[in-house]
């Protein structure tokens, strides 16, 4: 009697397993990895970072002191682009040209409107991600965001799924790998640096 009752549970488990599989496939761990939407202004990271050598923190000014990395205000852009206008004169053996993108920026500024950037990296609201903890621990921006300095149009590099987060929190961050991910050769100090692990109990990020 007892045995048969136990066996009767089995089809129920199968039904639950199938339902779970369908649900998981339908709505489960999705990710926007690789999505690179068109932005209102085609902002060229390569020019600013590689050609001009600007530091990430110049524009994303609170990434090392706040959970929020900070998006540059229109005023920050205009700090340079008041002078660097859309008309570029011929120099360095390159012909004169007009930048439509700088024109758009100046239009926003003239109209006193902020630029409605399309958000790419977004964590669910039940996750709290403090940027400054990661930046100050020496994690390179590119470890999570990819080689932004080479992206003509920014896309989501990592899956941003929890497993991906835990990969680092549990196994640790290797400074040399971080430098390689950023596209730089690790220094001997990086190679010698100990692997940094982080807390991974749920309540560290979920509250």
């Amino acid at each position, binding site marked *: 009697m007892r045995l048969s009752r136990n066996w009767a549970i089995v089809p129920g488990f199968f039904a639950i397993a199938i339902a779970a599989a369908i649900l998981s496939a339908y709505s489960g761990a*999705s990710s*926007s990895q690789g*999505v690179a*939407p068109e932005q209102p202004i085609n902002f060229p990271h390569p020019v600013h970072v590689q050609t001009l050598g600007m530091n990430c923190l110049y524009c994303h*000014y*609170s990434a090392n*002191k*706040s*959970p*929020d990395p*900070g*998006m*540059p*205000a*229109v*005023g*920050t852009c205009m700090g340079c682009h008041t002078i660097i206008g859309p008309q570029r004169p011929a120099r360095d053996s390159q012909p004169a040209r007009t930048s439509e993108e700088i024109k758009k920026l100046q239009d926003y500024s003239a*109209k*006193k*409107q*902020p*630029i*409605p*950037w*399309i*958000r790419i990296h*977004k964590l*669910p*609201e*039940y*996750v*709290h991600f*403090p940027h*400054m*903890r990661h930046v*100050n621990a020496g994690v390179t921006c590119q470890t999570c965001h990819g080689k932004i300095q080479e992206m003509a149009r920014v896309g989501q590099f990592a899956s941003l799924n929890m497993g991906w987060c835990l990969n680092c929190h549990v196994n640790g961050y290797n400074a040399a790998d971080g430098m390689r991910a950023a596209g730089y050769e690790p220094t001997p100090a990086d190679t010698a640096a100990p692997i940094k*692990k*982080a*807390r991974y*109990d*749920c*309540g*560290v990020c*979920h*509250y």
Partner: protein
Amino acid sequence: MPNDATEPMSRTDGTTAVRRREFLKVLGASTAAATAVGCTNEHVEQLIPYLTSPDNTVPGVSTYFATTCRECATACGVIAEVRDGRAIKLEGNPDHPLNHGALCARGQSALQGLYNPDRFRTPMLRQNGSLTPTTWETAITTLTQRIAGARAQGQNVVFINQAESGSFPSFIDSWLGAFGFPAHIAYDAEVDLAAREANRQQYGGVQAPTYDFAAAKLIVSFGADFLETWGASVPQQLAFGDARAALADAPRFIYIGPRRSLTGLNADDWIPARAGSELGIVNALLAASGAGGSGTLAAAAQAAGVEPAVLERLSTDLRAATSSLVLAGTTGPDAFQVAAAVNTLNRSLGNEGKTVKPAEPIASLAGPVAGVAHLAPVIARMNSGAVPLAFVRGANPAHTTPKQMQFATAFAKVPFKVSFSSVPDETTLLCDLVLPDHHSLESWGDAQPVPGTVGLQQPVMEPVFTTRATADVLLGIARADATLASRFPVATYREWLTARLGGPAALTAALPSGMIAGAVEARTATAPESDAPGETAPLASQTGDFDLVVYLSPTLGDGRGANKPWLQELPDPVTKICWQSVVEIHPLTAGRLRIKPGDHVTVTTSAGTVTAPAYLYLGVRQDTVAIATGQGHTGYGRYAERVGVNALDLLTGSPNGSGGLALTQLKASLTKTTDRSMLVSTEGSARQHGRGVAQAVTAADLLAGRSEEHEAFPGDKPHEFLPGLKSPVASDAIGDLGKNEHKEQGMYKPDHWSGMAKRRWAMTIDLARCTGCSACVTACYAENNIPTVGARWQGRSLRPFHTSDGSGWDTRPGANILKGREMAWLRIERYFEGGEDGSSEFEARFAPMLCQHCGNAPCESVCPVFATYHAPDGLNIQVYNRCVGTRYCSNACPYKVRYFNWHGFGVPARRQYAFPEPLNWQLNPDVTVRGLGVMEKCTFCVQRIREAENRATLEKREVAPDEFTVACAQACPSRAILFGDAADERWTMAKTVQDARRYHVFEELNTYTAVVYLKKVTHPREEPNAARPAGGAE
């Protein structure tokens, strides 16, 4: 309005700009869906940056502004936490001379006035009979014309303002004077004018002395509810809490009155004197001590309906006490005489200067304040048609005066009425023009909390709507008049203030602390004329079955709190009723009349009638019924509408001897109706049933080291904690119960390399200090995005069943609470001890109840999805995104502190959404807004722990002891709650873990809770000759 921005704040330039708060709204809410991307079903969100980066703020990091609370006249200092341009939390200013960092529930709720969804968006002008939106230009032009038209009859113009301290009252007077109008009337229905007037006469002009509770050995209160609505409640709570913290040496407290209020429940003894008999008692006490007075104690006892021996003992004790403190806050027609006699009694007992300190007055509770008697002549003039123009600001006399005074009818006869209210209320809806004022958190101002210090009020954020500061509107009108412009040589009220507070440099220097040395101009106006509208006959000579006691609601006050869902949802500390009016009847009386709890009873007086459900309360006399003020609004926004009854409908405008409304003036009769409704109560049981949730120890037992017996429960014999309040066992989510190798670890090993296991976040709650005021509850709502669930539209769907209003929804106020679906992570449990036979000798105990963060938590082992588990730093964590809503944990929890989100109160698209725009602007960005179907509970403010850890790491140091605290502990006006790391003895909290009074609730369950309760200390009367037992506490 550049004048309205504080220095540390930024703003966009120019008027065509998208206002910063508008695009922050998008940034914060992140819901702007534009197009779909690829083949996923995710919506595109926008990331809107600043136009110009503000100087002193970092996105995602809070800025703090010191300002002044204007929710009542006391004017406590507050610190507003502002995140990305929005105020998200108010906390007391630790340096303020009055509140020293504490803040009451009403002060916390100022934010819901700021973000009230019913606020006026624009000025309103009456057109074709209804108030319609208009522009500021039209509104001001209209008002200017009306003022010009009224100047011929200028002496009859009426300006009613809220009672407040600071420069603004004299500013209004100078403005009114410039136009030839009389000085304004400062009206406040909550102020005890009787006590103030008696003090003024007897203490050389001082209206509100401070009271030193700690210096007294015996405190006697004649109806003065000093922990809730009487006087400056927060400073008084701090002082009373400190007095009670002396434990065995703490003063005994006797409360005298027909109803035992929250303050009364904190007393050791209650003398249930009949309403109106207090004067006889005070006079007899005076006579007994040979200090004048008249009458005998026996006669007074006869009139009061108490045993003569009770008063004899009171008299003996008062004379025997080395120091005492007697307070009067009665609300009858003889309130002034009682207050005056009590002042005389204090003087004869030598308390003046010792426990009553007129030399240290509370300056904010001074100045000429008007009551009903001062409004009566105004009403008469309005009725006669003599008043051409009336202004009202911050006061709602149409609701806070008895209907019998006919304020609304008279007010309607004024040809042009102007309101400066920022929310619709009964008076404002009668007006012809509404010029919505800024909220106090959006505008400049000042207050005078104590002599020599001015409290500053500064805007902490850009205005939410297109409102304008009343002071600036008045200034603009005066400056537009060529003949008056020279009298007002400043463009804005800020400049006007700056000139009076020592110039721009001094103001800028003072703003960070929110205080500046100095004094504001006192109002030159004298008290307005008073015309007592027919005093009522003494209660004893009236006919009727019951004495009617109307009292000010501790949560809603005179009704001004009723449009704030936090205050509606906050259970009354005494009755535990929310979203409802009840008639309080003694259980024996109810038994005699066959009235059961919830039966609708009609209370009838000579002035009117109200019908409300009956609530059986031991703390009212058998010949008395009591009703709270505050409810019964007809036009105070969505949260106040159709909730309860207005108790003032039962009263005449009879004054209390100094102009204030006598709240206890009439006899009433009681009729049971056939209707009944469930009581909207958060209470399970008023009795402890031997469980020992709220334990107490008498002062004598404490000294002798004895403890109260409570029923022993079967089960495992309690084990001792490991050092640092850690649990020796863990029935954790790992499932290996009882296995030796898992006994000492939670989900993770205690020696986890992160080093966090060294911590054990824990809390101490000192029941000797706790008064049950419930400020912590509202602080918790504010900090943790807790939804309110009692509004009429938040009930469940009843389709396809029939509902009385045909909507198919359960639209009873508090419908969810009736089903036990309230969400208060922290609640105050109120228990009665004794009085089962209906006697007045019962004791009340309060126990704040929240997640106990058990070391060995029953909830953890039953969760099938590991959504709740024990973190290495001692927290019982609830992971919302793991939770599937089985509710097993709630079932398993012995403390019933887990709350299930039944209707998706945090989901904007749902009918039950608790934060309609712009209430959602207040949401704390550090805390997840929970959606449908998840379990939630107290987190020990884990976001504050993480913030402190993040800050410490950023500064390359450890978290310092007492570096931060949790929201409830921060707010507590009696300093009953301490939070800290029990495993680190440098924290103040850790020092209390071994206190002699410690206990853990349900210790016998071996849950190893992180909340340490310290027993309440009671002070039963000792015979004066009986020697105290010798020996120490331990």
